[in-house]
């Protein structure tokens, strides 16, 4: 007997600015405004990793925030997904050659979806989150031992 899969209908987001220039962060927050209103889909921006299902990270990883990102990820209860937003979160972007930058978010924690752009547009971010929902659902089914479906396409797994 499969459970009802409420997860897709109520994804709560944790937003962390690793070392972003704030460009992508503003676009993430734009998704919450009346224009895009992602609460339509039950998406809530929570400030608490223990309540979150999706971790949105903007900016590349540097030596100072490496333990923070790892800590936030580990505090989130399973099932969880990570969405790296913007060029910096994907690869380190234009800052990748800097002495203190380790690189993209995937150097520290597994990333499920990469949203490209500098800065990423709100539409792209919403698309990335929707893609992440498919992966989240797969992870939930793996967790509960239900039969897994074929991968949901667009999103890159780990």
């Amino acid at each position, binding site marked *: 007997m499969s459970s009802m899969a409420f997860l897709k209908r*109520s994804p709560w987001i944790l937003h962390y600015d690793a070392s972003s220039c704030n460009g992508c962060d503003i676009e993430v927050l734009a998704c919450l405004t009346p224009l895009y209103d992602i609460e339509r889909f039950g998406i809530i921006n929570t400030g608490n990793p223990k309540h979150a299902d999706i971790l949105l990270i903007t900016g590349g990883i540097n030596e100072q925030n490496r333990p923070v990102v790892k800590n936030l990820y580990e505090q989130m209860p399973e099932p969880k997904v990570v969405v790296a937003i913007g060029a910096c979160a994907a690869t380190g972007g234009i800052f990748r050659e800097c002495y203190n930058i380790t690189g993209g978010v995937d150097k520290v924690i597994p990333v499920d979806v990469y949203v490209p752009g500098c800065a990423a547009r709100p539409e792209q971010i919403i698309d990335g989150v929707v893609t992440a929902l498919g992966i989240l659902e797969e992870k939930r089914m793996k967790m509960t031992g239900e039969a897994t479906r074929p991968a949901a396409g667009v999103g890159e797994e780990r």
Partner: protein
Amino acid sequence: MNWLWLIGAVLFLVLAPVAGGLIAGIDRKITARMQGRVGPPILQPFYDVGKLFEKERVVVTTAQNFYVLAYLVFIALSGAIFFAGGDLLLTVFAFTLAHVFLVLGAYAVHSPYSHIGAERELIQVMAYEPMIILVVVGFYMVTGSFFVDAIAAATVPAIAYLPGVFIGFAAILTIKLRKSPFDISTSHHAHQEIVKGITTEFSGSTLAQIEIAHWYENIFLLGLVYLFFAWNPVIAIIAVAVTYVAEIYIDNVTARVRWQAALKSGWLAAALGIANLAILSYMMIGGA
């Protein structure tokens, strides 16, 4: 033997989570419309709670789950006593005890955020407790009974004798519904000042239990609003709806205050209640 009280209690235990969840959904929809947004589906609170039960159980201390369960049980119990037509004083004491368990649950975890939330919850309890007792005293003075069934059956309009008590109660209702400007320990609005206040360290099914307890709590509080207008059920239901929408409006037009202001407001409400009761007792001695 009259078994009617049992029906009231069972109906509350079964239907209150459904009604409470629906009201929470309508609340979020109205809030969204007030902000010029479309808002989530009406059933969103049920999706949220269903989701929380699907998540991994992350437990910091096993004691925290025990306390949260006690919170849920005592909230449900206080509501059940109320809807069974029982003693209003007993209802209020069980209600307070429930919140003590929630505070203990938050203190059981060694997290500064959780502790600040717990402290603020205690301040909220201090702020609303005098007023909620005055409501009970007021009903006794008007109807001559502490029993909910007697108060509900009274033919006198309690609101006509207790307007100050009602306004005071409406003020602390804002605290109890966890709405701005008094949502200092935790709030419905997702992004919190201090992580998530009292619920910071609760996740998954434990958080879901807190949410369900809150639904029970809201139905009980709206029942208390109903009692003020109980002489006419139609007016009473309209009054409950108007009060709730007014609370949503206040939530959306005010910013969160500091704990000092919350405490002062709660006691100012109590002062208003006491003034109302003093005038009432003077009139009762003089008039009758």
